[in-house]
């Protein structure tokens, strides 16, 4: 029995977070840079002479988006657990590409500079960063985690997420559905009862879940969604419009210029965010030929443009209510989750879908929509660890989002576990042979709601082998399908007449084999998993060097002269102290001295920030803007400006 900490991780399309239960409240663990959000961006730095390429994650990886877009991956969650044909269309919107020799049936690999990575490997880098942030925060190893996934993720997408955890050196104790996690973060109070709907519109996915709360039990009644619907779609829409207009008006096809596309994408995201607060937003972009593309987007035009996207959330909401057997009026509370729920048009749609203002109600938005899922994951982590009295009486009963079926005669689907069944759930089916002496039977398992297997998502093909040769129809093979608490399928079989457990060969339609995952464990690639103390020392030194360099730079900033002589000498003293302990081997002294220097320079940093803000002018070159956003550590999107309240 392991007694280490269990952390909760929100592995998001745009940003990822790690949180834990501090006493009786969940809190987010910040990174080295003080930011709660780690952008889900992974970059491969150019190879040093004779060395290996280094992988960077988060804010530092974002810097590369404009400089070397072909070496950066983001929104990889959209590619998790999907096959070649499915990701090809999706990738047309992104600057990165698949490796040229990927075959249908393989897990697609993304070409990054001179290396290739599967989506779970990319996610593993993000997870490892979060793991390290947590280890740095606790000062001890973290090996167990709860990771959230969109409720509407299918089996392959869930398995890919678990694989990513394993590659990052994390034992994934549970996959929790994001909307359910959000409900947990809101419903810590055991006295809460009633029916709540969680509307979760993030960067790349949409989920709706309806839950019944009763004496600490969170029982999901139904869930629905779209794993390819979110803020990214709005960005892509605005981006496509701008690119078309630039092509038409200026005769330049920017689609051929990845870094220009990234610059326009950034402008589109800026405009989207501004339009949540303002009545209009402007595009003002310098084109490679020196022309300017200028355009104003009034809020009403914007809302008309995005209406078809937002409207796609209505169907799943209605279906979820039908499946739960309730009407809008029976929903007591609505919780909004995901950055895209800041859009006023989204709130208006939610209001009308659930008749909120008509009933004198408002949706819950008191927890930061970017953090609430991670906070809920931390609550679930605490439930699993059994480490907190607050969570002792809480229990989450979740459901499977999609029906499980097997392909029957004529390609028709026989459903064996219906959607919205509480998990774990199981079903037992019997199979026999069609030909005398037949010794194996093939079973095709699919997930989805359509009548024909060809229209559903293929999960796996099972080959039942070693059936004793008998007359046709005589063997009776009992196959048990079990969906576990992570929403992942397990299959076991036994031949009842011989009593033998049948041998099953599984061919997952999409996904990595155990052996493949094993070879992708990050530390084996990194080939240098130093012992933990050594790693902490290296990390502490890196932090120290980074702040020392910043302070050296800041001394030549005009803001330095605005400090009092006292402040200046205090900074110098703290700097000298850090420089001296950094030469030693004591991790804690280095860290303390780093924090001390950080505190002493706070006023200086504020002065510099103010100066930067006042001097900021619109229409600067994209390179300058790129630098600026790369330095901006709290941004909620790889390309977006700082979080707004």
């Amino acid at each position, binding site marked *: *029995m*392991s*007694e280490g900490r*269990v952390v909760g991780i929100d592995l998001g399309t745009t940003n990822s977070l790690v949180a834990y239960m501090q006493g009786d409240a969940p809190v987010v663990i910040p990174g080295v840079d003080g930011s709660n959000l780690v952008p889900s961006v992974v970059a491969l730095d150019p190879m040093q002479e004779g060395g290996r390429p280094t992988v960077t994650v988060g804010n530092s990886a974002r810097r590369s988006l404009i400089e070397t877009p072909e070496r950066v991956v983001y929104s990889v969650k959209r590619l998790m657990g999907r096959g070649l044909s499915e990701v090809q269309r999706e990738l047309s919107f992104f600057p990165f590409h698949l490796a040229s020799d990927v075959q249908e049936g393989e897990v697609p690999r993304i070409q990054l500079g001179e290396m290739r990575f599967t989506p779970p490997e990319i996610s593993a880098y993000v997870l490892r960063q979060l793991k390290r942030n947590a280890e740095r925060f606790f000062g001890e190893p973290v090996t167990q985690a709860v990771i959230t996934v969109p409720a509407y993720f299918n089996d392959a997408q869930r398995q890919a997420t678990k694989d990513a955890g394993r590659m990052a050196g994390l034992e994934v*104790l*549970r996959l929790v559905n994001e909307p359910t996690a959000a409900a947990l973060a809101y419903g810590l109070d055991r006295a809460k009862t009633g029916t709540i709907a969680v509307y979760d519109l993030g960067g790349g996915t949409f989920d709706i879940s309806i839950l019944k709360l*009763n*004496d600490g*039990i969170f*029982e999901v009644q139904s869930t629905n969604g779209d794993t390819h619907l979110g803020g990214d779609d709005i960005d892509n829409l605005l981006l496509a419009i701008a690119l078309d207009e630039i092509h038409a008006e200026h005769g330049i096809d920017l689609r051929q210029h990845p870094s220009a596309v990234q610059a326009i994408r950034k402008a589109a995201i800026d405009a989207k965010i501004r339009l949540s607060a303002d009545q209009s937003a402007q595009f003002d972009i310098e084109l490679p030929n020196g022309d300017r593309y200028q355009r104003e987007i009034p809020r009403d035009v914007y809302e008309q443009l995005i209406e078809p996207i937002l409207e796609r959330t209505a169907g799943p909401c209605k279906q979820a209510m039908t499946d739960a057997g309730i009407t809008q009026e029976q929903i007591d509370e609505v919780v909004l989750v995901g950055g895209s729920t800041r859009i006023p048009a989204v709130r208006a749609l939610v209001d009308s879908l659930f008749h909120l203002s008509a009933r004198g109600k408002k949706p819950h938005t008191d927890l930061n929509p970017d953090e609430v899922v991670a906070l809920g994951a931390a609550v*679930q982590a605490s*439930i*699993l*660890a*059994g480490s907190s009295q607050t969570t002792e*009486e809480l*229990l*989450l*009963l979740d459901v499977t989002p999609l029906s499980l*079926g097997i392909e*029957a005669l*004529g390609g*028709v*689907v*026989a*459903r*064996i576990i219906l959607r919205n*069944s*509480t*998990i*774990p*759930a*199981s*079903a037992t089916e019997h199979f026999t042979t069609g030909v005398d002496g037949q010794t194996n039977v093939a079973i095709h398992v699919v997930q989805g709601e359509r*009548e024909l297997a060809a229209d559903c998502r293929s999960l*796996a093909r099972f080959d039942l082998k070693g059936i004793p040769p008998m007359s046709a129809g005589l063997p009776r093979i009992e196959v*048990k399908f*079990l*969906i*576990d*608490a992570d929403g*992942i*399928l*397990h*299959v*076991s*079989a*036994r031949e009842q007449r011989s009593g033998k*457990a049948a041998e*099953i060969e*599984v061919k*997952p339609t999409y996904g990595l084999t155990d052996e493949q995952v094993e070879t992708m464990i990050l530390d084996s690639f990194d080939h240098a998993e130093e012992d933990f103390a050594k790693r902490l020392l290296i990390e502490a030194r890196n932090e120290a060097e980074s702040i020392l360099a910043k302070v050296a730079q800041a001394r030549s900033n005009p803001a330095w002269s605005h400090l009092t002589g006292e402040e200046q000498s205090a900074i110098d003293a703290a700097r000298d102290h850090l420089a001296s302990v950094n030469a030693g081997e004591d991790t804690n002294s280095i860290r303390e001295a780093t924090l001390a220097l950080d505190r002493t320079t706070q006023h200086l940093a504020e002065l510099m920030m103010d100066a930067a803000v006042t001097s900021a002018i619109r229409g600067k070159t994209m390179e300058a803007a790129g630098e600026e956003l790369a330095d901006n550590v709290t941004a909620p999107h790889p390309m977006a400006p700082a979080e707004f309240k």
Partner: protein
Amino acid sequence: MLNVLDSAVPVSCWSCSVSHQSSTLFCPHCSKIQPPSGGNFFSVFGLEPRLELDLGMLEHQFHKLSRKLHPDRYARATDSEREWSLADTALLNDAYRTLKDPIRRTEYLLKLSGAEIGEEHAGKTAGAGRTDPSRVPVDLLEEVFELNMQLEEMRAARQAGENDPHLQQSLTAAKTKFDGLMDDVDSDLREQWTAWDSGDTGIRANAQKTMVALLDRRRYLANLVRDVTETLGA
């Protein structure tokens, strides 16, 4: 993905060695979870097979047992305990899902009593089985024949992009009628529940036969209603 579940039944607790009944979920002595005993959907709730159930009580029991059995409670337990918790919770969830629905509950109990029940899954008999003429209830023969003609016409009209308000009206009327017939079947079923629950072996056998026929008729009606709804909504 592959996991062979073994359900061997020990006679004494694996943890404290005190012997117990093989059908228990937890050791009465040390409260540790026990290997799955292969109980049925009623026994997992500690119930005798019955058709009239107090659903409030069932939900209460479901929550109470979930709190003790759920894999969340065994995240850091031994591999065996985790496996048993998974198997038992799946059984509990399957049981609750089946027993809280009156039709699924009836089908389950009848199967448990050895009755042959038609396929209960939507889709399993899709295609050819939908309106299998050999199973048309005799009293509905004429109407079903008429209805199928109308459904064909409606689909043809839809394909040609036409709309026939008269046909639509008559299909809607048919749907209302079949909905009503389903309600009749449901109340007939309820009468048989009481008979089965309180009756002796002979009465039970009769009730069982009647219920099997009623369920067949209901399944047939449900398929018709679905076909009409789909065609109208297409």
